[in-house]
């Protein structure tokens, strides 16, 4: 469970309401694949990931980025029960996708940096701190069903 104060919850939902899921999703997943190239190991079927420009313009990366952030959005609506919300996805990532949970932490931090880039001064230290709690909570929830 994530423990956010009323203020932190308001800050997170307030900012998230302005997020373009497709744009930020594509930027986040794309940046993950570029900054931590070993994460490309999960995306052999995505086609050309050979350069930063190839990754950022890749349609499959954008589509998948949007999918991931939409799911993340769901989590934001259920901050009191992230483990329940992500239980099925956790099983999927363990049993079918075989993703090391460390990757959830990497993506969470990349998302934070992308939000900073998109929102500038509005992404204050306080807002960041709230989001760090959220991304950590989501990462833990996604790892919860691993066995």
């Amino acid at each position, binding site marked *: 469970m994530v423990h956010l104060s009323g203020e932190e919850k308001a800050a997170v939902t307030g900012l998230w309401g302005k997020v373009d899921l497709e744009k930020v999703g594509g930027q986040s997943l794309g940046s993950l694949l*570029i900054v931590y190239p070993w994460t490309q190991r999960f995306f052999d079927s995505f086609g050309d990931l050979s350069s930063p420009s190839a990754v950022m313009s890749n349609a499959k990366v954008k589509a998948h980025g949007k999918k991931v952030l939409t799911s993340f959005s769901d989590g934001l609506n259920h901050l009191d029960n992230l483990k329940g919300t992500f239980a099925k996805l956790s099983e999927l990532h363990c049993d079918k996708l075989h993703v090391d949970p460390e990757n959830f932490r990497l993506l969470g931090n990349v998302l934070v940096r992308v939000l900073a880039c998109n929102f500038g001064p509005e992404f204050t230290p306080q807002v960041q701190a709230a989001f760090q709690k959220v991304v950590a909570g989501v990462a833990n929830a996604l790892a919860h069903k691993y066995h």
Partner: protein
Amino acid sequence: MSLTKTERTIIVTMWGKISSQADAIGAETLERLFLSYPQTKTYFPHFDLHPGSAQLRAHGSKVVAAVGDAVKSIDNVAGALAKLSELHAYILRVDPVNFKLLSHCLLVTVAARFPAEFTAEAHAAWDKFLSVVSSVLTEKYR
């Protein structure tokens, strides 16, 4: 892990722009670090950690200046930071996990202040560079 020529160029060029806000960046980075990762405050019991405190500003400047030194000697970061490496190993003994946290907060600060420059490529170069700096600073730990 070593930086490619392209990565070095990106970093040196961006530093030219960033360094004009060095002090503010240092203070903001530390503020972000202490808010997001409160456990890092355990290394500063002797500091006034209120945002805007003189000690925070001074320390932030020190940290960013050291990053700047590494940029200026980007072909020999180990040489440039040798003294700091010893300081961290024998005196400060900051747990290595904290270098990742500080690096992340510095990247967030730079991204927020220089969004146009913070392309995915620049992000990658800086993440790698700060990783090199962190390695150098923890090299002598054991």
